[in-house]
């Protein structure tokens, strides 16, 4: 009896329904409260990375379209938004948050369809957090005097915002919510592979009755982004994306009066001490690197394990990886979804090859990977050296490098020995050690006995090549204000 009962008990597929979502075949640009066809009438296809099927056609904004958007934003800033009482501005931001919440399920499904992230994450992390950012900053809109007491507070004007494809709606929320709360208007460009939730957000903004031109969404590729960065009538550039593009932006802005914040790449250290709660640390390693297929700027991609427990941690990590499901992002039981694009998959595969060429030991658990679509099995590189390329460069995929260390001083040195400085994780049972490390690690965010925890009240940003400026919390608000 019991043999039959427990034979291969596996989860049946449990697909999230998609019949409730509404997607148009073609999306235009959202400028001045209207949906406008791109001036050059060019569109590009956006696909589902899980099966490579086309989801919709997206307008490609030219320099002229961007100019139109900036003009609309300037007009809205001068005539409406900057003159509106702050408490009224807050109401609009609240309304957007509530409308997003009401349509959370639709947002989650579209986010998973287009970005490849699992429905579990888009449903439980991305969308609720995005709503929370709007709620949080709505609360500050009419309390800026209390947020920054004894200072003269002025909004900046028009903010140009360029966001990446790893957390499409969440990044839009991180950018738009504080900008609006501080009294600015916005021209936002989503990444070319993930425009849909930003466009759905535009629909909600339209529904909310936000005055035309306060938020403009222009879709397109790098040239569209360049047009925003170089536009003379923009007061502030906020960019989240690769370090390479961040450097181009910074060069372009030299000598201009534009304020800028850059949130760039990372190669964050996740440090496990001998006295750590070991099973929870293993879970933290998994959350640190395999969350969102490792497409996370602050992913804990460099693991440092103290030598006394290294063997045990690696064994447990491998065991844990056996129960990770790779597959259809819309299956509620999927732990690791699709890689966002073919290009990104190629980048990851390039690094896997480099790792093997460097003579490092690679480990991937047995897992079935769908034939169609872009997928990468969770990967460990063992016995990695500090001088290995794969331990130095950002891979932006589910790939973890593992190094060992002996002493606290050694691991601080090794963790800081990187051009990046975005995040770090510290796992130990000893409180004093946590505080010692948090003061010595050069990283914008340090998590103690947890990893990849986000909250709208908490500032986020990096050191060194990970960028500058902070988003979230009051720090994030001040980035959209002139304080004197």
């Amino acid at each position, binding site marked *: 009896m*019991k043999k039959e*009962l*427990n034979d291969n008990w596996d989860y*049946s597929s*449990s697909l999230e329904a998609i019949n409730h979502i509404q997607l148009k075949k073609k999306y235009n640009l959202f400028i001045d409260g209207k949906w406008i066809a791109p001036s050059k009438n060019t569109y590009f296809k956006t696909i589902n990375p899980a099966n490579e099927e086309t989801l919709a056609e997206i307008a490609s904004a030219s320099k002229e379209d961007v100019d139109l958007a900036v003009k609309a934003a300037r007009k809205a800033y001068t005539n409406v938004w900057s003159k509106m009482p702050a408490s009224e501005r807050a109401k609009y931001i609240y309304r957007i948050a509530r409308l997003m919440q009401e349509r959370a399920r639709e947002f989650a499904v579209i986010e998973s369809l287009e970005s490849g992230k699992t429905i579990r994450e888009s449903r439980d992390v991305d969308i609720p957090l995005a709503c929370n950012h709007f709620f949080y900053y709505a609360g500050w809109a009419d309390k800026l005097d209390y947020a920054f007491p004894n200072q003269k507070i002025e909004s900046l004007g028009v903010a140009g915002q360029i966001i990446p494809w790893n957390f499409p709606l969440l990044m839009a929320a991180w950018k738009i919510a504080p900008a609006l709360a501080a009294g600015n208007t916005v021209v936002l460009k989503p990444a070319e592979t993930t425009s849909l939730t930003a466009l759905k957000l535009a629909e909600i903004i339209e529904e909310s009755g936000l005055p035309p031109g306060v938020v403009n969404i222009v879709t397109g590729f790098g040239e569209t982004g360049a047009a925003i960065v170089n536009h003379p009538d923009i007061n502030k550039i906020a960019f989240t994306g690769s370090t390479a593009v961040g450097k181009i932006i910074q060069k372009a802005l030299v000598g201009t009066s534009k304020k800028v914040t850059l949130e760039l790449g990372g190669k964050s250290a996740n440090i496990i001490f001998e006295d750590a709660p*070991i099973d929870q640390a293993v879970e933290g390693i998994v959350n640190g690197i395999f969350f969102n297929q490792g497409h996370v700027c602050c992913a804990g991609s460099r693991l440092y394990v103290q030598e006394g427990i290294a063997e045990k941690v690696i064994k447990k990590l491998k065991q844990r990886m056996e129960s990770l499901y790779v597959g259809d992002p819309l299956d*509620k039981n999927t732990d690791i979804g699709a890689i966002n694009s073919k290009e990104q998959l190629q980048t990851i595969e390039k690094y896997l090859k480099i790792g093997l060429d460097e003579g490092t030991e690679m480990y991937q658990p047995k897992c079935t990977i769908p034939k169609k679509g872009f997928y990468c099995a969770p990967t460990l590189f063992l016995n990695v050296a500090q001088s290995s390329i794969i331990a130095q460069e950002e891979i932006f995929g589910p790939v973890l490098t593992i190094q060992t260390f002996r002493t606290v001083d050694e691991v601080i040195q090794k963790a800081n020995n990187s051009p990046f400085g975005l995040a770090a994780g510290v796992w130990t*049972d000893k409180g004093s050690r946590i505080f010692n490390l948090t003061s010595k690690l050069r990283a914008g965010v340090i998590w103690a006995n*947890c990893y990849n925890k986000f909250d709208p009240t908490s500032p986020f940003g990096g050191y060194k090549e990970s960028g500058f400026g902070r988003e979230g919390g009051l720090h994030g608000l001040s980035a959209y204000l002139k304080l004197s």
Partner: protein
Amino acid sequence: MEIKSYISNKIPVSPSIDKVGVEERIARFQSRSIKNEAKKQGLNMVLSMIDLTTLEGKDTEGKVKQMCYKAKHLHDHFDGIPQVAAVCVYPSMVAIAKNELRNSSVKVASVATGFPSGQTSLALKLKDTKFAVEQGADEIDMVISRGKFLTGEFAYVFDEIAAVKETCGKARLKVILETGELVTLDNVRKASDIAIYAGADFIKTSTGKIQPAATMQVTYTMLMAIRDYYDETGIMVGMKPAGGISTAKLALHNLVMVKEILGTKWLSNEWFRFGASSLANDVLMQLVKIETGVYQSNDYFSID
């Protein structure tokens, strides 16, 4: 009576447990979606793993006999419903249950060692155990001395378990930690390690008399102890969450946890049990719903 010392230096230092991290892991188990075939198979598995239990001062022959019949005939209106794994009774009821369950695969488990508090002498605890075994119990559910544990007398706790194990003979020993009285997960882990290394065949969360009982956090912590012991020695130890698991959904979440921590090898009533009295009917209700598409009221399922 002289206590023989069994404690060895083989017990490892128990790892510390971070409760916040445990809760996060539990949330992942709970977000697993168990549908269709997986649900049906899972629910049948749950039924086959139940230790149908009555542990009351007012237990009588009549009550135990009725429960034993239910153990063999959970829901005869339906084909293919498995029998439960065992019935769990006080030592004085073992002979009755044993007689009722002759010619069936349902085991008889007996609590012993001064259940539920365990506040008696070791000599009496061993006598209690011996009596239950002689009456025909296939399994003994003992309680640890929580008072001794909380005062740091771990060697005493260890030796006591080892002595009971010796008295059990062929009967399998389940060691009840009474996690509701140990309070912290660090304590639960330490007690699990002590019980396992002292010779427990099964570790069990609770008596059912103290709240909270079998929370997923506690069961998770104990499963990790079993996992580590298996990795170290290759020896399998069983797990029995008892008390507080009254819904099919919670039971399925427990199975998910067992599957992902220990593997499908543990998914049989030889290695995993639910100590519960009201769980069976909720599971039956779900199974009937899967087959017929409608929920029936409680009145369509016999209470014992």
